[in-house]
């Protein structure tokens, strides 16, 4: 993998993979919902939508078609630290993929009519999430766990802001953050590195850099007591979520906690883009045995993702019918307390490491997934975090896991959320 920085500040990562005649291009921006100020929540994600709505050289109805007309796939997403766009297609389309991304970086239009039509599309997207009890609980838990840091508001934004944001709000935000010195371009596939770099220079070299965006953020103060929330709403199933403030990707406790999560709920790997594809192996995981085998929950799931600032480690459980949420909570907390008192065994450590290694092989089984991982880690810190991950995982000791468990699983560090269903009227 070669890392280069163009004169205008654009970071370029290129990795050759000659297994199929394909190439994947991802363009990453260091802007996500944590960069948003009050009144503009959801602006990062809305900009992402607008950046598929026409550029100076690609008419508005063709931005989505230009990659598909010769059979490529495309998508984009926004989360707390990042906004990203991708194309995967035949390697012969590399020039066109780079052209699209250069247009997106410098020449999007933000036509007022398109702002209005996307407003309702995004409100529909938001409502789809709120219609899902598990997602609603996740959103409310996060908002309760954070009181100062901007990780507290949902990526999609609050409805009131989505109703009032203007075209100029969106365009101003786009111009501030979509500059080459705030971006990383990743190419993985059946390409020649030197030739690919020359093409990148041709498409992006002339884009002028901007002022580095200001990054004023309030760090989340240490939580001083347990927080709770309970949602009572129509539904058929009771959900429990417990969130702990967790180490960031660069913190020494991150990999020990990742291993602890594997022991508690099964190894997930490190790929946000592909982690949903295959459920984690968890039949011997501690929380599976404590909750599912005992009939208290039908499912349990842990989530720790690499983030730039300290985010949350969340454990979610679905209560079985007629099991009170309090009983699920008590059994879950008891297991976490056990982990923070006694740590994990050497056998568990060894198995969790093996599982994580295997997951990481599957996390990088296509040019699209490899390119995602390179860009994701570069955007939240450094690509070295990804390159070094196997070594960092291998180096984790049982003592380090026990230490992380003690620090993270403190009662005062947690927020507990219940979704308690009301029978339909």
């Amino acid at each position, binding site marked *: 993998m070669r890392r280069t920085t163009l004169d205008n500040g654009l970071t370029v990562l290129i990795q050759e993979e000659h*297994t*199929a005649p394909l190439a994947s291009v991802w363009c990453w921006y260091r802007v996500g919902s944590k960069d948003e100020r009050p009144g503009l929540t959801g602006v990062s994600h809305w900009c992402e939508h607008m950046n598929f709505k026409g550029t100076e050289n690609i*008419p508005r109805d063709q931005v989505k078609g230009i990659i*598909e007309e010769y059979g490529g796939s495309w998508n984009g997403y926004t989360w707390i630290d990042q906004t990203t766009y991708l194309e995967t*297609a*035949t390697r012969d389309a590399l020039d066109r993929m780079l052209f699209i991304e250069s247009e997106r970086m410098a020449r999007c239009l933000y036509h007022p009519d398109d702002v209005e039509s996307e407003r309702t599309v995004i409100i529909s997207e938001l409502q789809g999430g709120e219609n899902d009890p*598990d997602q609603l609980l996740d959103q409310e838990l996060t908002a309760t766990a954070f009181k100062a840091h901007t990780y507290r508001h949902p990526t999609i934004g609050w409805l009131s802001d989505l109703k009032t944001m203007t075209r100029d709000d969106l365009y101003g935000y786009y111009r501030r953050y979509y500059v080459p010195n705030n971006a990383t371009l990743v190419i993985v596939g059946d390409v020649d590195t030197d030739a690919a770099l020359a093409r990148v220079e041709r498409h992006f070299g002339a884009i002028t850099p901007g002022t580095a965006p200001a990054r004023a953020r309030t760090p989340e103060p240490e939580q001083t007591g347990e927080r709770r929330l309970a949602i009572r709403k129509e*539904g058929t199933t009771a959900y429990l979520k417990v969130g702990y403030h967790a180490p960031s990707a660069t913190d020494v406790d991150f990999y020990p906690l990742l291993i602890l999560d594997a022991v508690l709920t099964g190894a997930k790997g490190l790929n946000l883009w592909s982690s949903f594809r295959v459920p984690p192996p968890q*039949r011997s995981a501690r929380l599976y045995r404590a909750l599912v085998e005992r009939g208290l929950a039908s499912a349990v799931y842990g989530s720790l993702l690499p983030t730039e600032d300290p985010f949350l480690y969340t454990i979610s459980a679905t209560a079985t019918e007629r099991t009170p949420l309090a009983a699920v909570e008590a059994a879950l907390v008891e297991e976490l307390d056990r982990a923070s008192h006694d740590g994990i065994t050497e056998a568990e450590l060894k198995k969790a490491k093996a599982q994580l290694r*295997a997951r990481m092989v599957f996390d990088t089984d296509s040019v699209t997934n490899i390119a995602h991982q390179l860009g994701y880690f570069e955007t939240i810190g450094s690509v070295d975090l990804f390159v070094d991950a196997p070594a960092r995982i291998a180096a984790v000791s049982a003592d380090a896991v026990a230490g992380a468990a003690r620090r993270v699983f403190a009662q005062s560090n947690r927020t507990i959320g219940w979704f308690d269903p009301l029978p339909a009227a």
Partner: protein
Amino acid sequence: MNRAAAIAAFTLLAAVAGAQDRPGVGPERPFQLAPRVEKTLANGLRVVVTRQTAVPKVTVTLTILSGFSSDPPDLTGLAQMAADIVQEGTRTRNSRQIRRQAFAMGGSLTAGVSQDFSSLSTRGLSEYAAQLIDLVGDVAMNPTLPEDELAILRQQHLQTVSRQKSSPQFLSNRQFRRAVFGEHPYARTSETEASLGAIDRAKIEAFHRAHYRPNNAILLVVGDVEPNAIAAAAEKTFGAWTKGDAPRPSFAAPPSLVGRKVYFVQRPNSIQSSISIGNLAPKRSDPRWFELTVANTIFGGAFNSRIVRNIREEKGYTYSPGSAMTGFADAGFYRFSADVRNEVTGPTIAEVFKEIDLMRARGAEGAELQGAKTYLRGVFPIQTSTQGGLATLLNTMYVFGLPKDYPETYREKIAAVTQEQVKKASETIFGSDNSVIAIVGDWSKVKDQLSSLNEITFVDVDGKPTPAPQ
């Protein structure tokens, strides 16, 4: 992905005329899979091996040619429970040992059940290919069906049934499928509390004995492996498996659809309506599948399709509209689906029928046909570039009896689709006057918009008819 917000819920197509300053794309590259080695053991088990060396791993899938449609009507979920429970213990391995051995080989073991088949699938590092085949063979042939694991599974499935009742997308699809298929087994999309209560160990054992037979199964192996060594490993593992005559499902004729049948599932305080619109379609092995696919791609099977352009891009009604064709062994269906804001529920239905009538009347227009064909030809090599994608394609081919050269000729068959065929295909799949409409939402918020629809049948979350909500 449920935390991050994506631009598109799924990745789709387009068809547009060229613009200026757009770098060209070279000519299409030839597409060639490694040759498949196919062998049938003396007991009837078909073994198919394809080399794919992109990563040093292997995917082993044992597909049993019996699925949901082999469930007796009052035991919906039997095939699924059988596929789940066989992984929980064999005569020589308990549940934990099965998982531990799969992990130790860098892999996993999962079950997937569809209308016409049940698959046990494992993947791992290719150096363990023979052991992975042995593991899959053991769970398929020698399961002990332990009662304690069955109790856990039943509990999990009951919970799924309960959770499904709060999912508007699930309820919309279920009502749609029931209306389209009637007494045909493809009407059944999920278990019920009653069917789960009635499925016991004896019934699973009988299902397993009847259906898990070598002459009712296919072993598919894709990966960085040597085909002759795999064939030998398959013989060693499965050679002594005894054959038997698996009963075939009985397929009742689906009801003939006359008029627009409208169903409404009341979901109080719903902030969106989940809509399904569609009808019966040909089965997966129908030779018209290529033209039907092209027609659906133009209509709603891709991002720049007419439906998405109209109701998402232009009108902003919804984030997630689309249409899909699904083909099974005996029949198929086409379904438009979307979750839309309450206040545009009626207008969305009107727009979908407007687009259906246009497709039926005029077929593809302008550059649409060429665009859809190029798109489908282009995504094919991407879909088959991963081991999972290739294994899925091969499974489809062998389950539905598609021609042996299906992967190699797919792109030329798509290229050969004509304007006339697309128009004919549109008339075949997109029912206008005769179709099913299933809506899940809050009646009090949307009823004024639905006054133009014919008689509406109201059903509850269990699918039972109810009076109209107040």
